[in-house]
């Protein structure tokens, strides 16, 4: 079961930028691409824990600010020579408002 949580509007995030959402299970990064696609992934690089929301967003990818690993926002997979995956979180945009699905994760936490 999906439990959608409204987190704000698309205009809260700069184009080619990101914001983070704090949850009891850690930070989630919400990304907005140059063409207004919205993605959500864990704000935590699997390499050394860098905050991915602080990276440079290019296309549907982000470069980690600590050691320049690049992750696909669509799949959460590291691109290029590096190997690793960040969890992706379901996200939907309705009339400019963004929701993310926290249900499963929090149910599991109980």
């Amino acid at each position, binding site marked *: 079961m999906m439990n959608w949580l409204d987190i704000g509007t698309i205009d809260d995030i700069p184009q080619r*930028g990101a914001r983070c959402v704090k949850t*009891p299970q850690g930070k989630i990064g919400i990304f907005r691409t140059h063409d207004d696609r919205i993605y959500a992934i864990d704000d935590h690089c699997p390499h050394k824990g860098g905050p991915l929301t*602080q990276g440079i967003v*290019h296309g549907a990818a982000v470069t980690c*600010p*600590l050691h320049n690993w690049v992750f696909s926002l669509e799949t959460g997979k590291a691109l290029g020579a590096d190997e690793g995956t960040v969890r992706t979180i379901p996200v939907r945009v309705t009339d400019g408002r963004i929701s993310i699905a926290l249900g499963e994760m929090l149910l599991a936490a109980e």
Partner: protein
Amino acid sequence: MTEKLVIVGNGMAPGRMLEHLLEAAPGRYQITIFNAEPRVNYDRIMLSPVLSGEKEYEEIVIHGDGWYIKHGITLYKGHKVVAIDRHARTVTSGHGVTESYDKLVIATGSVPFIIPVPGKDLPGVLSYRDLDDVSAMLVAAQSRDRAVVIGGGLLGLEAAAGLKERGMDVTVLHVMPTLMERQLDPAAGYLLQKAVEARGIKVRTKANTRQILGDGKVEGVELDTGEIIPATLVVMAVGIRPNIGLAREAGLEVNRGIVTDDRMVTSDPDILSVGECTEVDGRVYGLVAPLYEMAKAAAAHLSGSENRRFIHSDTPTKLKVTGIDLYSIGDFADGEDREEIILRDASAGIYKRVILQENRIIGTVLFGETGDGAWFNELKKKATDISEMRDTLIFGQAFQGGVSADPLAAVAALADDAEICGCNGVCKGTIVSTINQKGLTTLEDVRAHTKASASCGTCTGLVEKIMTLTLGDSYNPAAIQPMCSCTELGHDEVRRLVKAKALKTIPAVMQELEWKTSCGCAKCRPALNYYLVADWPDEYADDYQSRFINERVHANIQKDGTYSVVPRMWGGVTSSKELRAIADVVDKFAIPTVKVTGGQRIDMLGIRKEDLPAVWADLGEAGFVSGHAYAKGLRTVKTCVGTDWCRFGTQDSTGLGIRIEKFMWGSWTPAKLKMAVSGCPRNCAEATCKDIGVICVDSGFEIHFAGAAGVDIKGTEVLGLVRTEDEALEAIVALTQMYREQGRYLERIYKWARRIGLDEIRRQVMGDPDKRKAYYDRFVFSQKFAQVDPWAERVSGKDKHEFRPMAIAAMQEAAE
């Protein structure tokens, strides 16, 4: 005894002749050159890229001053020869220098044809032949006003494109119904006109100039219809005429040009003629390939060999306007005995036409897609019977005989005698064998040894493919390292094109320079952002999403995602008030670590991102501004205590350091810039390993630069010694601005200096007061927009979103 060889003219033909002669008969002649232009031999074909800003004069020099010295050649620059005395066997220059000769070579080139209309002599009417014309056009283009180019041929269109790139509003007037009618058929001429107009250049065909208007300077052009086109610059590019006045006065046989035989010998057996002034077998030439053939024949004759003679051959025409591809060769007029094959692709703007006579190619016109030009030309030269491949001929080489469309395979399939470089007549086999024999590995080497792609450069891609085929993986064709995988262009090319095309946003750069990705990557975006900030300080809006996190939030990210904050301490000097404020901030925000940095200031580490604006607010109240410890920009100016306290101090080093820091803070540079000022040669501020350093001495200030104390360790180089603080500041600022304008992103000053050359930097900053002042003024202008404290801006609310989470999913909400 050595014979005396005198050459009148120093263009590309005699330059090439000398190269051949010095190779075939070194030391045989004592050589003297008279050049009416006040400079060395440069690549005249490349004037258009200089005009458009894609190249600079230094890059198109063929023979630098050192070459003449090395070969013992006397070069009289700016000496126009006014008389030849064939009985006394002497020539005399306008400055009164007389030299005797055993052999004389006349290479006076051509003069632009000026249409004889009223107003042709007004200031602001230029021709397009040499560097002086280009310089004059560049000055005129600064007005960004209106220009008229008379002549829609090769030169006229290149001039128009260059002036447009420089920001002028350009109209081309052409007397014929279609552009370049001598090289293109009407269909290709039409496509060319569309491509030229798409660049914002207006084209008027069938336009006859009645007169050039103006009172004391050019104001416009009047057509024979009575219409007036306003302009402050008129460029006449309607054609050239062989420059034969000197030869005629000397009594040599002249016709349209100076008449020679196929050894380039004139009617006087001791006088030769090469270049555009020469008429051989009834023809005069204007393209470089036949001129180089003349050079070979003349060199052979002068070295005593008679087996190399001039033979006529057709030369392909190419236009050197970035983004417009056209190629034409041979005869393309219609005729009863002729057939043609045509391919058109309107949406892609492609037109290809091959003209056949008895199943053999006699002419080719290509527009939009010219990759097969060399192949068609090869078939034409060899008079190959094409009936077998007639159905697919027009699709090009890749479609013949099962050869794949791989461009490398197409080059591999070329015969050894296929001509690669049209300008220099170099075939594939010569390039391959020279690479193998001499062990060449770089494009520069191949150019130096074979001349292939060394003139107009349009065959560079082909030459590189041949190198790849010959050398295999050991050749990396990226002689220019691309900025990143989003582009083929290197940093220098991008910087030059940003200026030349006046690109002022990142999307504009990516569109115009054909970026391969939709919005770049983490490598190119910060670089482009810097180039635009540096080049258009007043117009470009800094793109924070293209800045690395440290520069975006004005603090240094640490391994755990917290930040460190370093306020500026001017010259490393602080006070009890400042220290107390820092202590209060540390307590208030429970900052875990406080550390003294190597740059004489204090670092507070482990600050949560959300706290940054509040930390800055408190620091700001105590008078602190950002120390830019995170920036590719001015970091610190370390100082020692100088004459204020030190018994050895020679100058007020602390005061100078503070003055420099207050003048230069906030400026962005290609990489970080650390400075220091030491009060005496004991050098307590360690100025001699800094990016820029000053060592104070009794007689003034010794300015140092290009040191390094990181992965590389390197002592500084001396820029120069100046007497006063003011002069020191001006030189340091000018040096910094030169580096800001030329450096590649992330290239420290010592690497930049190694690339540019220390002498060149000294020449521009210390040796040329005008240049120094211009650099200084541009830096000062840019500082008007840069000296804003980023911390204060953020305390007052800028980029609020950066420092707050978007939302907080609380437990009870989530538990529903």
